[in-house]
């Protein structure tokens, strides 16, 4: 699915007011997740090293047993061609040992880029169980840009399992398709 198709999906969701698809509950294979990510325009190179650079890191275990890892100041995450910049990055791990973080929160001038795709917002929250990422901004709209095509909104919801987007309070610019759609 190309970028215009992604945008059309967004338009369709916006027009119908439908919520983004909930994760099916069935274990989605890595391949389907990768395909979903590509539909969004951001693919993950799972076999590439993941590097996080920051000025500070703090790790502590909370009273509830959850481990909290925080990177602060000039945070940069790189994996393959995917890059994330922000001021603050927090990962919460479940009390049970090992596994993926439950939640990853990036705050402060969040910018995710890969090839000609760029996402900008004030806060991005990734929830593993919900298979979702939500980009929100208050002062300026959250923005998803790919080439000349732009999606803006107060909130952009990425369904990472299905590869669908949902935009709240925003608009879509599709110069190539000569279309512009707004949503209150």
């Amino acid at each position, binding site marked *: 699915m190309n970028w215009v198709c992604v945008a059309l999906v967004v338009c369709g969701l916006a027009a119908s007011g439908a919520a983004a698809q909930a994760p099916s509950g069935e274990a989605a294979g890595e391949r389907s997740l990768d395909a979903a990510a590509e539909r969004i325009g951001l693919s993950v190179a*799972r*076999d*590439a*090293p*993941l*590097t*996080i*650079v*920051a*000025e*500070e*890191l*703090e*790790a*502590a*275990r909370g009273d509830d047993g959850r481990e909290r890892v925080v*990177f602060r100041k000039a945070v940069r995450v790189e994996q393959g061609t995917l890059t994330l910049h922000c001021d603050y990055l927090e990962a919460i791990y479940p009390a049970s040992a090992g596994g993926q973080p439950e939640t990853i929160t990036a705050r402060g001038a969040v910018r995710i880029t890969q090839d000609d795709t760029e996402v900008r917002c004030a806060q991005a929250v990734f929830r593993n169980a919900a298979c979702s990422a939500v980009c929100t901004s208050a002062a300026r709209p959250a923005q998803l840009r790919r080439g000349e095509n732009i999606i803006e909104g107060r909130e952009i919801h990425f369904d990472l399992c299905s590869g669908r987007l949902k935009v709240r309070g925003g608009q879509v610019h599709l110069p190539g398709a000569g279309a512009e759609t707004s949503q209150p």
Partner: protein
Amino acid sequence: MNASRSGRGGARRVLLGVVLAALGCRAEPPAASAPSPRPLPPATLLGVEFEGFSGEARDVRVRAVHAEVDSEAQLVRLERVKIEFEDEARGTVVIEAERAALRLDSDDFVLQGRIEGHLGAGEHFETTEVHYEHASERLWTDHPVELRRAGLHLRGDAMEMDLVSDRVHLKGHVEARMTPR
């Protein structure tokens, strides 16, 4: 080993202090009513080895090629130190340092030179200076530190660890690199 009985006792207390500190335990303070012993003259110990047992099982071993015990200054200097102990969570922990300076009166210590630690389960750390303050149970270094385990390489220009809350703080040019296995 060249050591008097009392000299060995001093080294034992110090080395036990190191291990307890490394484990995040507080050493028991001396009883208030106990008479303070006369300071011993400075002693040099060669080939120091201390082993601590829990029942039949050895749970700690500290070795140093050279040690100077100054009980008047309440200071012990060790060279080429190797500390091994069993940790419930990590298994066998081994820490090696070129030099160590230990305060007998506070159980504070400084490790210096090339410092390497193997924390069990393939975990490894390296730095060149580590301070421990017993009163606050705080461990820190203002020198670059590297931590490695399978698939993870972590570094920073400085580190602070609160042993009470088990909080770790890496500062300055922090880099975490995770390699898929």
